[in-house]
Each structure stands twice: as structure tokens, then as C-alpha cells.
């Protein structure tokens, strides 16, 4: 028997609605009775939804207060109108849905909420991961390690120096071949200009350093350590290192520039990691210890069980450009010492009796500075 045109259209519409990934439902605005649910909606629930009321569903629904107008009070003249458009979490499953509801006249004349809910959990999670990564990147940028800073400066100054070398080299070759002054003069002037360019870069660095002059305030030692060690979380896991934090209770706040001291801790901790690269797995313990040093200072110590440092190297350790690492510039410890001394503290190194090395530095307690 041939279907009439109306049946045909309804069937096609149902095929379309059932083909959607999104859950589609229609419910009476007054008593919440579900009048229609597509296949995606039914698949989310273990019961047949049509005939039930909207309560305790898998698909989250807007609270009454979320609606632009109270749907219960809508009359035939008020529809169609939009009721809700937003993202909602489903507290039990932790999944997120984008829900859109519209009020309209149902086939039997009742006013219904027609809703469509799309699972956006994956998109939400991706966005969240991206946001967290971005946050980490911006924090890392702030705490750019001193080695990287030094490497950047080296690149900047390299350009004019290389140009000067090229100009002068060409001049020497031509002078050896008996070139006249007139030919060489403009080139030597260019070399001078490049030397001035290098000078300007140095001046810019000085100004930058002056602008970012340390600002010392009262800081809890634990906060400094927490922040700095947060950066090496991943490293510890990857390298199989156990981090032992030993902070004495009731330590007074120290007077310090938080970011600078975090950099010192970060550098010393990373050095400790590098020193333990070849240590036995159960020996890979890095201790970070904070305790009072007299009444006016706190001592922070970073203790590794690595290969240790020879007597000879220990003397040159804090000199600029001294390094034992293949990729190092040898600036880290020298800058660390400058930062600590700026804080009226002392950075020292000694052998760890259990094997390895201990770097320790002191910071003045806040009250001692105020006195």
C-alpha cells in the first residue's frame, strides 16, 4: 500500500534525526513528559524515554534559573522562541554537552521544549590541555634559564663580530696585494660601524638588566621551593630521580626576589640531576633542604649523590664560562653566585659525605632586614 505524502515526509525526517550524533528530544514544558527522542538520545539511556519525565537523565538539562524565560508560562503566541544555548557538565559522568533548547508548538498543540545536546567532552578536554600547556609555556618563558639567556646574547653579538672579522680579513688580503687606501677606507669605516653596533647591543643589555632590577619582598621559603621544583616534575620522572624535600617547620619568611631565587634553585637542581646521570638508579636521590642558619638567615641546600666535583674544578666552578658540560656555556653557577650575593647571602659548595656534592646558599630573614 502506498504511503501518503505526510507519512513519507515523517519517515524521512526520522531517518535524519536518528542519523544525528547529537541527542534530540522534545518534552512538554509544563510536566516535563518526553514526547519524542531520537536514537542517539535513546542510546544514552537504558530505558525507553518517551512517556517518562525529564529528570535524572544522562543528558544534562539547564536549571530553571538558566532559562531566559520560564518555559512553563509560555503560551501559544510566545513560541517559537529560544530558551537556552550553552555548555553544561553532567556531574555524574564528568562529560560535557552543548545544549540548545527552543520552545515550540508540538503536533498536538502542546507547547514543548525541543532540545538538542551534543557531546563536546573531547573538544573541552583538548581546549583544557592547550590552556594548561600555554600556561606552562608562559611561566617557563618568565623563568627562562640563565644559560638560554647567555646563549641568546652570544647570538646577538656574534653578528657584528662576524661582520668585523670579514671586513678586516678582506682588507688584510687586499693590503697584502698592495691595495690603495682609498679602496680600503670605506670598508674600514663599515667595520667601525659594526663595532659600534656591538657596543649598542651591550648597552641595551645593561639597560634591560637595570630595568629588571630585583625587587625583594618577604617570601615563604616553601613557596620558592614549590615553584622552582614544579618545573622539574617531569624531569624527575623521566630520569628516575627521587626528590627528597626537607623543609624545617616554622621557618621565617626570607627577604628575596622570588623569581631570581627560584632561578638559582632551578639551576642548582638541574645541575644535580646532570651530576647523577650515570648514578645507580637507587642512588639517584636529590635532597633539597631548608633550615635556619642562626637567627638572621635561612640556608637552602641542594644535595646530590652524583659524581662529585674534583678539588681542582671546585676552585674554578664559579668563574664565568667554566663548564664541564658539552653544551654548557658555563654561566649558570657564576650568575647564581651573583644573585645570592646580591641578596647578601653566600653560595658555597662542599662534598656530600655520602658521595656527590652539596650546594648551599643563605638568604636573610625578612625581620633581620627590617631591623
Amino acid at each position, binding site marked *: 500500500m502506498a504511503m501518503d505524502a505526510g507519512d513519507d515526509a515523517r519517515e524521512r525526517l526520522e531517518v535524519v534525526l536518528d542519523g544525528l550524533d547529537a541527542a534530540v528530544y522534545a518534552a512538554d514544558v509544563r510536566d516535563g513528559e518526553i514526547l519524542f527522542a531520537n536514537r542517539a538520545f535513546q542510546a544514552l539511556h537504558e530505558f525507553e524515554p518517551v512517556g517518562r519525565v525529564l529528570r535524572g537523565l544522562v543528558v544534562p538539562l539547564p536549571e530553571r534559573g538558566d532559562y531566559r524565560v520560564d518555559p512553563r508560562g509560555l503560551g501559544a503566541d510566545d513560541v517559537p522562541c529560544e530558551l537556552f544555548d550553552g555548555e553544561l557538565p553532567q556531574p555524574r559522568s564528568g562529560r560535557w554537552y552543548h545544549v540548545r533548547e527552543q520552545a515550540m508548538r508540538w503536533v498536538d498543540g502542546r507547547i514543548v521544549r525541543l532540545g538538542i545536546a551534543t557531546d563536546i567532552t573531547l573538544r573541552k578536554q583538548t581546549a583544557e590541555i592547550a590552556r594548561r600547556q600555554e600556561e606552562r609555556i608562559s611561566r617557563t618563558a618568565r623563568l627562562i634559564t640563565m644559560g638560554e639567556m647567555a*646563549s641568546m646574547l652570544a647570538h646577538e653579538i656574534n653578528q657584528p663580530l*662576524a661582520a668585523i*672579522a*670579514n*671586513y678586516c680579513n*678582506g682588507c688584510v688580503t687586499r693590503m697584502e696585494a698592495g*691595495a690603495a687606501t682609498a679602496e680600503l677606507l670605506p670598508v674600514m669605516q663599515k667595520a667601525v660601524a659594526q663595532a659600534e653596533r656591538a657596543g649598542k647591543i651591550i648597552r641595551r643589555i645593561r639597560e634591560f638588566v637595570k630595568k629588571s632590577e630585583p625587587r625583594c619582598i618577604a617570601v615563604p621559603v616553601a613557596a620558592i621551593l614549590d615553584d622552582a621544583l614544579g618545573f622539574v616534575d617531569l624531569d624527575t620522572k623521566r630520569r628516575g630521580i627521587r626528590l627528597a624535600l626537607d623543609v624545617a617547620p616554622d621557618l621565617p619568611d626570607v627577604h628575596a626576589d622570588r623569581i631570581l631565587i627560584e632561578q638559582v634553585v632551578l639551576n642548582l637542581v638541574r645541575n644535580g640531576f646532570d651530576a647523577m646521570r650515570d648514578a645507580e638508579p637507587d642512588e639517584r636521590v636529590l635532597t633539597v633542604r631548608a633550615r635556619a642558619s642562626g637567627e638572621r638567615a635561612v640556608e637552602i641546600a641542594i644535595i646530590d649523590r652524583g659524581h662529585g666535583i674534583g678539588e681542582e674544578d671546585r676552585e674554578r666552578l664559579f668563574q664565568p664560562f667554566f663548564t664541564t658540560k658539552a653544551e654548557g656555556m658555563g654561566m649558570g653557577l657564576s650568575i647564581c653566585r651573583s644573585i645570592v650575593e646580591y641578596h647578601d647571602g653566600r653560595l658555597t659548595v662542599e662534598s656530600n659525605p655520602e658521595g656527590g656534592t652539596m650546594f648551599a646558599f643563605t638568604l636573610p630573614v625578612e625581620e633581620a632586614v627590617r631591623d
Partner: protein
Amino acid sequence: MIDEAQPKKAPATGEAQAGQQVFVVDDDDAQRDSLVWLLESHGHRVAPYACAGDFLAAWNETLTGCLMLDVRMPGMNGLELFDELARRHSVLPVVFITGHGDVPMAVSVLKKGAVDFIEKPFAAEDMLRLLDSCLAREREEREHRRDAADTARRLAQLTVREREVLDLIIVGKLNKQIADVLGISIKTVEVHRARVMEKMGASSLAALIRQIVSAGAQS
């Protein structure tokens, strides 16, 4: 002395020949200008470009010499230019100029078949020596390509029978054996053989074989 007053051109290091040029692509004005001066002081012909795009616009397959390329440039960087040239089947050798910390990049470039790289700051002698060897190699390769093309052109002029004779000569057959294989008289083989030598422009059997082998044209 009048002679001394004349600015003498510095002696070329002997490698900048046969129309070879050094193409310098570097966005830093001072780097580029000073490198041009240094290279010209050593007798090289230099063509400077401030960006990859400028060089690409000037590029054609007849350019000969060597390309010195800064890795870090705004816009199209050195690596991208290198890839683009490879897509265009450029045979120009490339020397990358790298800065501090570019070593991993340089390694990946070498794997892609770039000729060489030199790290800034470099000693002038090292750079010049590297450049000279690049230019020498480029010249050799270009001559080889020209010879191969010449051989191919000459081979195309051979008749089918002459080609058959040639193939048998190369594998070391004597005239008698060639005559037997092809079912022709020795006299005829000798005629073909003379024609082959003439068309191929070979002065001896050894020269002929060398020519065919080096062009990779054995059938």
C-alpha cells in the same frame, strides 16, 4: 712606482673559474656586505641577495658556482629555500651558514644532501677552503654532466646496427666474434666500427669505453 699606485686585484684562490659565482643569501645587511667584501678580496665573483625570494626570482638552471645560505632568515628561511631548490632540481651546491645552537638543524640539513655547513663565527681560511672545494666539485660535476649529455647525443646518431656493434665492442668482443654474432662479414664490422669511433668522437678503444661507462650509457 706607478705600478704600486694602481690597486691590484688580489690573487684569486684559483677556483673561481668558468663563470662560477658565489651566491650569498643573508638577511643581515652587515653579514651579507662583509661576506661579499671578503669573497671579492679573494677573487670570487659574488652575487648577494637579501632574502630567499630574491634569489628564487633570479634562479635558473644555468647558474653555476655555489650558494652560501644563512639558515635563520625571516620569511622563507634557508632550509625552506633549500627544499624549494631541490624541488626545482637545482644542482647548485649549498653551504649553510649556521649560528650557535643550530647544530641539530645542520645535521638534518646534511642528511638531506646539502654539501656542507659552516658555523658562525668562522675563520676566513676555513670558509674559503670549504668554498673552493665546493666550487671545484661543482665544476667537475658540471663537466661530467656535459660529457654525459654529449655522449647521449652522439649515441643517438648511431644506426641500429652501429649500436649493436658498439655494445659488442664494449663487452670485449673481437671483430671476428662480432661478425659471427651479427651474421655479417668482418669487413662490414670494420666499417661499422670505424663509423662508431667517428660518430662517438673517440680516439681509441679505451677512450670509447671510458666515455660510455662514465656516461652510464651501456645498454
